[in-house]
């Protein structure tokens, strides 16, 4: 198992950073009946999912950790079948309805109704165990055990509007038997009515020190000696993405098998993903030359990135970050404005490359003007 998963905290008490948030969650879990719909949001690798799972574990007990894979086939009214993978336990279902593309509405309606139509099996247990509960672990939980099931929807920001609209009513109607935990990166892509029905929980990205601390913990568990420098280095390189930091750490471990397998050098280079390197190369080219020909060349690169499934928003963001490195402060603001503008367009438009390239064209124009002002 990858270290990311292997050392993922499974209880709220094990969470290391965002302690206030953890406390809030614990207090929520203490009264499962009063658990509202939740909307977790925050950047990738901040620990949203970990918190959700820990919360579930807290509410439902260890049974929520017993996962299995399920593949469901839905038939839309237009007789199209949609396959959706979902991860289920006895208490919850986790799925990414966004995978269904435009048919996500039907998936959501179906699943939530189905979930809501049956009661949680935990209530049965509660009923049965009412008399003789003296076991330490269960005793603590059973009394407050929730009598609902939970639907965890990840990547809610990818849902179509129809699907989100379909959520609205069902969220209220079935709240007695079914709670929703939504998870997304960008809450602004969730429609207001849904947001209003949820308790928003922002999971901020951990800062560098927090990540480094986590890395050290993991290293210790894996009995690897991790120099502080490398830990800091990794956490910097990871862009405050804990998942990535852990993957980096593991990659470092794999690649650096020089002397001893369990000791990492402080100077160990941190491996980067290819697509990031590709984008930084692209950024360099853009800064170097601004011309329609260059624009043509960038198009090819954008094609390649998009073909390899790198999401357009990620491309744009990474590109802007790379560009900002080599920009004067005076135009950073403008560039970021336009980046935001085109990111919005990406989310509205149908062909991402239009907007990516439009951004690059815009950047070139801005940069050219900046250069012209500089020298003239």
């Amino acid at each position, binding site marked *: 198992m990858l270290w990311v998963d292997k050392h993922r905290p499974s209880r709220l008490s094990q969470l290391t950073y965002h302690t206030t948030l953890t406390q809030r969650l614990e207090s929520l879990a203490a009264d499962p009946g009063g658990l509202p719909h939740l909307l977790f949001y925050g950047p990738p690798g901040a620990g949203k999912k970990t918190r959700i799972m820990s919360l579930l574990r807290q509410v439902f007990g260890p049974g929520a950790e017993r*996962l299995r894979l399920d593949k*469901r086939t839905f038939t839309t009214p237009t007789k199209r079948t949609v396959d959706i993978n979902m991860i289920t336990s006895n208490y919850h279902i*986790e799925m990414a309805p966004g995978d269904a593309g435009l048919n996500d509405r039907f998936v959501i309606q179906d699943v939530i109704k189905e979930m809501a139509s049956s009661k949680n099996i935990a209530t*049965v247990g509660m009923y049965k165990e009412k008399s003789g509960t003296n076991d330490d672990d269960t005793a603590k939980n059973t009394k407050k055990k929730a009598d609902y099931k939970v639907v965890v929807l990840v990547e809610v920001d990818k849902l179509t509007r129809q699907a989100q609209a379909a959520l609205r009513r069902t969220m209220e109607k079935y709240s007695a038997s079914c709670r929703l935990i939504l998870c997304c990166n960008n809450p602004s892509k969730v429609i207001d009515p849904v947001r209003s029905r949820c308790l928003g929980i922002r999971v901020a990205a951990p800062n560098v020190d927090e990540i480094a601390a986590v890395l050290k913990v993991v290293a210790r568990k894996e009995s690897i000696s991790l120099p502080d420098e490398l830990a800091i280095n990794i956490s910097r390189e990871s862009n405050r993405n804990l998942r990535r930091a852990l993957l980096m750490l593991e990659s470092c471990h*794999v690649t650096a098998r020089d002397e001893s397998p369990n000791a990492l050098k402080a100077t160990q280079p941190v491996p980067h993903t290819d697509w990031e390197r590709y984008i930084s190369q692209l950024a360099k080219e853009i800064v170097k030359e601004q011309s*329609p020909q260059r624009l043509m060349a960038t198009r090819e690169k954008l094609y390649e990135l998009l073909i*390899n499934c790198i999401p357009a928003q990620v491309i744009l963001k990474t590109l802007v970050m790379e560009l900002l490195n080599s920009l004067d402060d005076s135009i950073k603001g403008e560039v970021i404005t336009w980046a935001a503008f085109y990111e919005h367009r990406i989310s509205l438009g149908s*062909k991402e490359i239009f907007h990516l390239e439009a951004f690059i064209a815009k950047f070139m124009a801005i940069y050219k003007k900046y250069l012209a002002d500089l020298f003239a």
Partner: protein
Amino acid sequence: MNDYDEPDMDDMINDYIADQEEGPPEDEEFDEAPDPYEFEEKQPVNNINTNNNNNNGVMNDNAANNDTAAEPPTSDDQDEDEEDDVPKVISTDATSPVAVSSLPRNNGNDIYGFERFTGVTGWRSTANTMTKAQLKQSKNGATVMEATGWKKKKKEEVLNNSDDISMNDDDSSIMDTDEMDNGRVRSKREMNSSNNGPAVADAQLVRFRERQEKECLGRTWGMVAATNWCGMNEERFVHGKKTNMDSSLPRLGEDSMAVTIANGTRTFVKRSTRTIVGEVSSNKADEDDKEINLLGLPMSELIRRADIIQKRAIRRKLEREERYGKKADAVKEDNAMDETDTNKENDTSEDKEVPEQIVKPKTKEEIKRQLEAEKHRREVQFQQRLWVDKHAPTTISHLLSDERTNREVLRALRGWDPYVFKKDAPARPTPAYTRKYQGQQQQYNGKGNSSKGQDDKNRGKEKKNGDDDENVNNQKVDLRPDERSRVILLSGPPGVGKSTLAHIVCKHAGYRPIEVNASDERSASALTERVTRAMESSTLKMGEDSKSGKAGKPNCIILDEVDGADAKSSIAALVNIVRADIPGPSKSGGKKGKGARSTYLRRPIILICNHKHAPALRPILPYAKQFDVQPPNPERLAGRLRAVLSAERMSVVAGGMLLHRLVASTGGDIRSCLYALQFASARARELTMKKRERDGIQPGEDSGVIMCDISSTLMKALDKSTGLKDMQGDVAGTVATVFRKKKSSGKNKRQKTATGASSLVASDNAVDFVLESVNHFGDNSKTLDCLFMNVNRVSYVDPTLDRCSVAFEWLSEADTFRSHKSNVAMNNSAEHHSMQKFYIPTAAAAIHVLCCVETKPDLTFSTRPLSDMNYQNQANVSLVQRFVEGLAPRARSGVGGGTNNVVADVIPYSLWLLSAGDGKHSLSKPVSSVEMLSVEEKVAFSAHVATLRALGLTYIKEDFGFNNARNFDNGPNENVRLEPEIDKLVKFEGIDNTGRKQVPALLKELLAHGATVAALRERELEAKEAQDASEKVALKKDAPKEVSPSKLPFKASTTPAKSLPKLKTGNNSAAKNFLGKRAAKAKEAKSAKRAARVGFDRSKKTKFANTGSGVELAKVIRFKYQKGFSQAVRAPCPLEDLIN
């Protein structure tokens, strides 16, 4: 009366043909034109019926008419009857085959005859064919009164007429100077009065036109104008001007024609046709000089033919009198006939007033009403028809498409004759006959019809070939045409007459066309069935016919619009049929395929498409004889249009110019030309009517026949749009428009040099033009993509890249409008659509303003990169999906959550994790066995295997195949790859990943093996855990209470050692525990069988279940496992209920 001539003309044609050819030209119409006498037997019933009580029994009359007609005809009736009945009367003459043939077409068919006389090459055969077609129709249609039959006839008539009329127009209406007209009128008058030769010719022309106008359109017009039955007569005579019916109007029964004098007044010229015989010769020279150009035939010839016809008419009349004279009813009728005949023969301008007085008023009224109703019905029916149908060509010589193409297509179709018609050998012409026929034709036509003659020759040649083939056939050889030309493929732009050509050629070659077009189901199976059935039914018919001696018609399948969307599979099916050989030699001879079950091509197939290079058609191309049908010659098309107009009683004052413009603007699309004309004429008619109303002309009081001039409306129509035909721009044109600066806007060039802002003020004109052309193209999305592809290719002046960025901003903006993600798209699709319609062209206009260039830009019109990207992206998305699905459940929930994360982080780093690494712990040694690895390497090895397992990956050996050269070039490394090959996702051009060392292929195989083993072990472990758990549970026999089933699974399998002791144990029996376990187990187990196998008590060795599970039989509990992702609620119930 004009109508008196109708039968004559019919007869004239037929008889003349008969005289000249002594039978139908069988090589052409051997199937269509069986001996005319042949259905003489069929017809009489019908005919005589009408004849007996006819008088007004027009071909479309109903029973009521017949009833009233039984009354002795009144004079007024006679008039009417004379018009309409005479043809019938004659036609009903059962003894005369020709008459029979004339029956169905009754009205206006004589025009064909006239066409013949015009001497236009090909008319001769036209008329001929027509006749036969008529015959055929009447034969097929059994009753002439069938609406369809009637329609068909109408169509034919009108079309043929139209050509005829065009000739008339040429000489009379088009050169419409005053003097000319007046002169003509005068001369005609003179001619009429003097009965001299030229008058006859002219009169004939006039007469034909008149009649045809009346026949084809009189009814139409009558609807508007005529309120009483008499109007039917009158409307032909009263034109334009308010006139006193009694005096200035031509008298009823008078042969007269309407002539427009220059001042617009309509006058009527009396005309007599008596003079046909004899007198012509004196004027012959003049006539030839004057008229040969118009008629193409010497007048003498015309007259001679007329003479023959005349004589025959008399003869027939006499015969009829003999036959029906006894009957009381018939007498009167015959009197009427006599009168009419006399009229006709003597060309007197005798009026009908005397008979009119005899009319019984009641009968008259009745008849009037009935006829009116009938007329109205017909009018409506007729008016509702599209000109395209109404004036469709009916014979091969009428086709507007290139004659050569026509001929070639026909010849290709004839290639099937040896196979299809070999049983009909007697019906086919001998070469000798062909020669004779040609000789006759030459003699008859003067110049002769060269194309026709050639055709005949060809046919003769083919015939010979066919004979050869037939001989060969006896030696069991496939008689069908060569495989390379077994089907015929017609391709060409829309509206050039491909379908018409196919149908006509089919008919001409003696087939019954069976059309399968896009409206029919054309799936592979449906098509195959259809084709097979068509081929088989004709086979049977042929067989039967060959016995009875009657020529049945084999089917010919016309697949129209084959380049449609669903063509692919059906074309494949078709290819199979085409390729199939005739099964056995035994079946190829004699009656072909009677017992043959398998499908092979037995009949010709004609495919029609717009683009023969459409991908769907590719498979059939090698088997098809391909013909490109080109748009017709503009001159010819314009001529035909003029003819159609005349037939529709429309005129174009501006003459050919306007029509030529129309033809040019439609790009030779006959169909759209006709639609345009029909549209314009409808408008013109409306205007005329209004004007007449304004002028105080009562619609009823004068005739319905109004010559409308459509030139103004047509002009308007032409002017309003840049082309009547939609400017169906292609991508190339549209995109070029956007990027190419319009020449007229040259002065903007100077403005443009200053700043970007000033150039934004491009001429509105240009913007409008771009907007329009983008709108015309229609496919906005495609336009947008193309623009996106080209914005960078065009080298407009843009030093600051401002234009470029703004252009891209526009594109980006426009892209949001075609997306379905926007709020508007979600909530209001109509609005979204209109926004799309508006903004995307606007973006194009903006780009035009920003980026247009003077010179021809190097543009690309392929959006291939975009679609390729999409395609590859799809493939990769599914790859990611596969990867995610392969992840272990926990990893999936964690690492695999969210595609973005997977692609951006997990997969790239997975590859790092799977790299060989550096140093002595690296997995870089290519070894063939794990034992050869060092201790450190073994650690790394097992770590690698663990990673593989965690990610659900493995290595597989890729089978390149022995002929792949890459194998040898790149070494064996290439052979072993990840499965799923997620490494594809991280390959970027120009990014070296040398830092990430590859594990050697040999080792990869070992690793893959290791992963497999690990997987097996895991599974084993799982199973064992489950078993352990169950056994543990079983041990706790004296557990006091049942365990919450929901809790159990987790404890049992994840941390068995820890959780099991914590299981509730009560005073319950083992069975209860078992059940608790069982219930939980059920949730995870996929089959009840497997669950049952996990016994609850193995120690007791009594009677075991036959499943081999070792469970005591008495204790086996069976229950059904309901599959589903969520656990249904189970109501609590005491275990005791379940046990026992």
